């Protein structure tokens, strides 16, 4: 790594929220208590598909301590969804009125003076259902005779997506070798440590305050306005500390909606916290998919054509499913140059819990198929696994036809580093092997499906008398460290120490709108906004220094480490804090305020910038029992300029733990629409003894679109692990595992199959 030319960027600063978190002072929605607060509980459908005939809450209302019961009929009955631009995809009525479409769907909510009373009251609500035939697999749901889940949606196909370039058939003709495979990708639960939680407090002057565990306070403010009939600005959403999101907490969920409806009815605060079981069965999950992949290559390994057909299990509602459907097809082409490419994706409704975005957004599924098939093709043709990738790798300036232009790209360097790492690792013991996967990922999305009128990110910098900077951002910290990242960028841009920066976020009353923490957008987008705001404030400050010293402001002055100086003669200057005081005097006692914003313009269809990586997973397999152990996970990683050092390491290791879970632990069987393991005994989350050592090799690139050359880090890193693990198994045993997560029983069965076929792969 080159020596750090920055003062604050890429140094091991403490997380700005760290002190509160390590002393137990951080207050999550889970902790919020308001005077007169009531407790809410949700009654859920036991059926995967049924018409609601009647709901009788008379007995529940009589139960001592119960204050209110609401059903869909007590609401505006709005069909909402997060893809607001497309009303046909806004298909979810929380507290459904006509029918239920998945087990666990909310049908009523109770508010009572204690959680226990609210829960007891649920048993007293009498719901009459007309049970309907259900279907929980997309390949069944797409058949003509399948039950129709949403009126008018033929074959239960709610969204299709198509990506194409080149002449695929012609390119297949040119190929020397063609291979096709089918894969089955499982779902995955976000499993945030803090379950869904909301405290809603409505007052009769039509003002609503909502504390909620969210990835985007602004989205929730806007969505709630839409479903409650309130003015957006009369809703205040507060999320100071959020116990994890991972893509599951920026859509409207029942904890928010039901708490708000109850609170509006009673003009009292109402708190709803999901149990862990509710979190498993009734929040949206990673999209399960069926993947068909056909790939044609030349015998020297040059990629010619790829065709993919994907059917995703959308569950009962759309959610963020449209994006996942597109991105899986888009990233399935990553990170290689394809002469011709065709993707057809079908999102199919089923009577199971809805699927949505989850860290990786369809790309982990895509890479599991693509990266494994590439290794199988390499094996079939006797080619080297690094060389075949290098030959076809994205490079800087490459245009993904009709989709994106790649600016910075460190993929080839990543391949070189991993190639060397594997060589250095040397010969491995029996039943142990290294598998690799390359990947690339977006740094925020370009398409405004939320239909927001605001800049995608905004920031305001206000400088106090003592030089402390109040940085107001809409970017939401959900643990990934965005508060710290913004503070670092602000400090660097302004030229001051990070101790001077106070970050304000997580409150729509005080912070500018920002689309929030999803799609790995905040470092690039909110970072750019923050940098712009800081530079605006700096420019205003330097006007006073310029007047004082008589230097030309633009070229001659700068601020670094709290020292305002002449660039040519750095010893000539003044302290930043003194300049701030001068500026206040000069501005009639008014503080300097800098403003910044960012919305990507003319950057292609998908994202303004792409991270790249190559990951090597070393795994050991017990060939008799099928049990896997991941020994090491090493990633060569290009995120442009690293900003938050501790944050980056944490994101890499955290992503690896979640992605490893997707690869071999987090089985989430749904049978007859029922989640079979909605608890932490039966749903396996990796623990400390099983977590492998993770090494990171940073590749130095500079992304022109990102603040200081930075791009995303943290979501892209969930893309390669399951694929790399599959490849490790392939190299250790010859088995081709086409289902994720890879469970030991599957491996044992695969060995049995292989034996039956006489050892042919």
């Amino acid at each position: 790594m080159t020596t750090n030319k920055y003062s604050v960027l890429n140094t091991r600063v403490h997380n700005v929220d760290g002190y509160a978190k390590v002393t137990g002072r951080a207050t999550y929605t889970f902790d919020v208590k308001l005077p007169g607060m009531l407790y809410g509980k949700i009654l859920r459908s036991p059926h995967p598909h049924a018409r609601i005939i009647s709901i009788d809450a008379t007995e529940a209302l009589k139960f001592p301590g119960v204050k209110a019961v609401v059903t869909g009929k007590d609401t505006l009955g709005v069909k909402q969804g997060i893809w607001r631009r497309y009303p046909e995809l806004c298909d979810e009525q929380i507290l459904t009125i006509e029918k239920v479409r998945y087990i666990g769907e909310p049908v009523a909510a109770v508010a009572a003076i204690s959680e226990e009373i609210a829960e007891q009251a649920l048993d007293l609500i009498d719901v009459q259902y007309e049970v309907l035939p259900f279907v929980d697999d997309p390949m069944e749901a797409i058949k003509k005779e399948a039950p129709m889940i949403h009126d008018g949606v033929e074959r239960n196909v709610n969204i299709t997506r198509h990506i194409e370039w080149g002449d695929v058939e012609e390119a297949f003709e040119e190929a020397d070798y063609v291979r096709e495979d089918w894969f089955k990708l499982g779902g995955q639960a976000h499993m945030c440590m803090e379950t869904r939680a909301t405290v809603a407090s409505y007052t009769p002057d039509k003002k609503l305050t909502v504390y909620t565990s969210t990835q985007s306070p602004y989205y929730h403010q806007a969505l709630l306005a839409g479903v409650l009939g309130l003015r957006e600005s009369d809703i205040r959403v507060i999320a100071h500390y959020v116990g994890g999101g991972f893509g599951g907490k920026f859509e409207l969920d029942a904890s928010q909606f039901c708490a708000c409806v109850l609170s509006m009815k009673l003009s009292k605060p109402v708190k709803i916290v999901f149990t862990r079981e509710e979190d498993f069965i009734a929040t949206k999950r990673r999209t399960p998919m069926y993947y068909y992949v056909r790939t044609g290559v030349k015998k020297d390994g040059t990629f010619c054509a790829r065709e993919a057909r994907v059917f995703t299990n959308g569950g009962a509602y759309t959610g963020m499913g449209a994006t996942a459907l597109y991105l899986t097809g888009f990233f399935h082409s990553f990170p290689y140059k394809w002469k011709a490419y065709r993707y057809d994706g079908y999102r199919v409704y089923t009577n199971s819990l809805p699927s949505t975005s989850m860290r990786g957004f369809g790309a982990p599924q895509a890479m599991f198929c693509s990266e494994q098939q590439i290794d199988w093709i390499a094996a079939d043709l006797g080619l080297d696994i690094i060389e075949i990738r290098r030959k076809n790798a994205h490079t800087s300036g490459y245009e993904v036809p009709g989709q994106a232009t790649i600016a910075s790209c460190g993929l080839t360097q990543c391949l070189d580093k991993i190639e060397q790492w594997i060589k250095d690792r040397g010969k491995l013991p029996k039943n142990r092997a290294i598998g690799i996967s390359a990947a690339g990922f977006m740094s925020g999305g370009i398409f405004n499906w939320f239909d927001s009128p605001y800049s995608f990110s905004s920031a305001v910098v206000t400088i106090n008398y003592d030089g402390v900077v109040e940085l107001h951002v809409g970017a939401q910290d959900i643990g990934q460290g965005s508060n710290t990242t913004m503070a670092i960028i602000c400090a660097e841009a302004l030229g001051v120490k990070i101790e001077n920066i106070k970050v304000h976020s997580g409150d729509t009353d005080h912070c500018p709108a920002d689309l929030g923490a999803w799609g790995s957008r905040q470092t690039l987008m909110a970072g750019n906004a923050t940098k712009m705001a800081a530079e605006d404030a700096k420019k205003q400050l330097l006007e006073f220094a310029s007047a004082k010293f008589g230097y030309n402001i633009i070229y001659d002055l700068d601020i670094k480490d709290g020292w305002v100086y002449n660039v040519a003669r750095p010893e000539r200057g003044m302290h930043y804090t003194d300049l701030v005081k001068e500026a206040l005097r000069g501005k009639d006692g008014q503080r300097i305020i800098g403003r910044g914003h960012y919305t990507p313009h003319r950057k292609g269809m998908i994202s303004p910038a792409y991270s790249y990586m190559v990951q090597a997973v070393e795994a050991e397999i017990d060939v008799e029992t099928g049990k896997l152990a991941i020994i090491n996970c090493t990633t060569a990683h290009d995120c442009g300029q690293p900003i938050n050092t501790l944050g980056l390491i944490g994101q890499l290791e955290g992503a690896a733990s979640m992605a490893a879970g997707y690869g071999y632990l987090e089985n989430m069987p749904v049978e007859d629409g029922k989640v079979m393991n909605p608890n932490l005994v039966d749903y396996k989350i990796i623990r400390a003894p099983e977590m492998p050592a993770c090494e990171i090799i940073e590749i130095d690139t500079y992304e022109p679109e990102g603040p200081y050359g930075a791009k995303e880090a943290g979501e892209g890193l969930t893309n390669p692990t399951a694929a790399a693990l599959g490849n490790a198994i392939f190299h250790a045993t010859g088995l081709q595992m086409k289902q994720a997560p890879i469970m030991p029983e599957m491996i044992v069965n695969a060995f049995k199959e292989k034996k039956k076929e006489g050892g042919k792969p």
Partner: protein
Amino acid sequence: MEKQLLRFYVNDQEYELFINPKTLLVEALRDHLGFAGTKRGCDTASCGVCTVMVNGMAVKGCSVLAVQVSGMHITTVEGLEKDGKLDPVQSAFLDEGAYQCGFCTSGMLMSARAFLNETPAPKDGMEIRRGIEGNLCRCTGYNSIVRAIDSVAQGKYREGV
């Protein structure tokens, strides 16, 4: 149902509660005494975010009836710092960034502290990992936490160092 009188110590301070005997320790701490640092995250005693120390032993607050700790000394995350001075594990967590969303952090710190009290010189990283095996973390992947605990064991935060 007859309420029970409970007298116990939390962070060296004696408290008296008159509670329904089915009250869990974590409920007594959070709801009756206001120690909100300790969290709850599951219904099956699996996640460990409710970990506190009872007479120095790491225990899940969701799996202990409060009445069972009569006369005992409970330590919560709020009790790790002394007169505004952070416990070495807290300083180590800060230095290593051994937390992200922070929801598991209180419980994790208590397990770390209890582990180091019992095993001040762990023989290897795996022993540390086993020391926090009962605590789930969805954000960090544990390695930064292990580094933090190891740095305390190595003496980085010894007084005078």
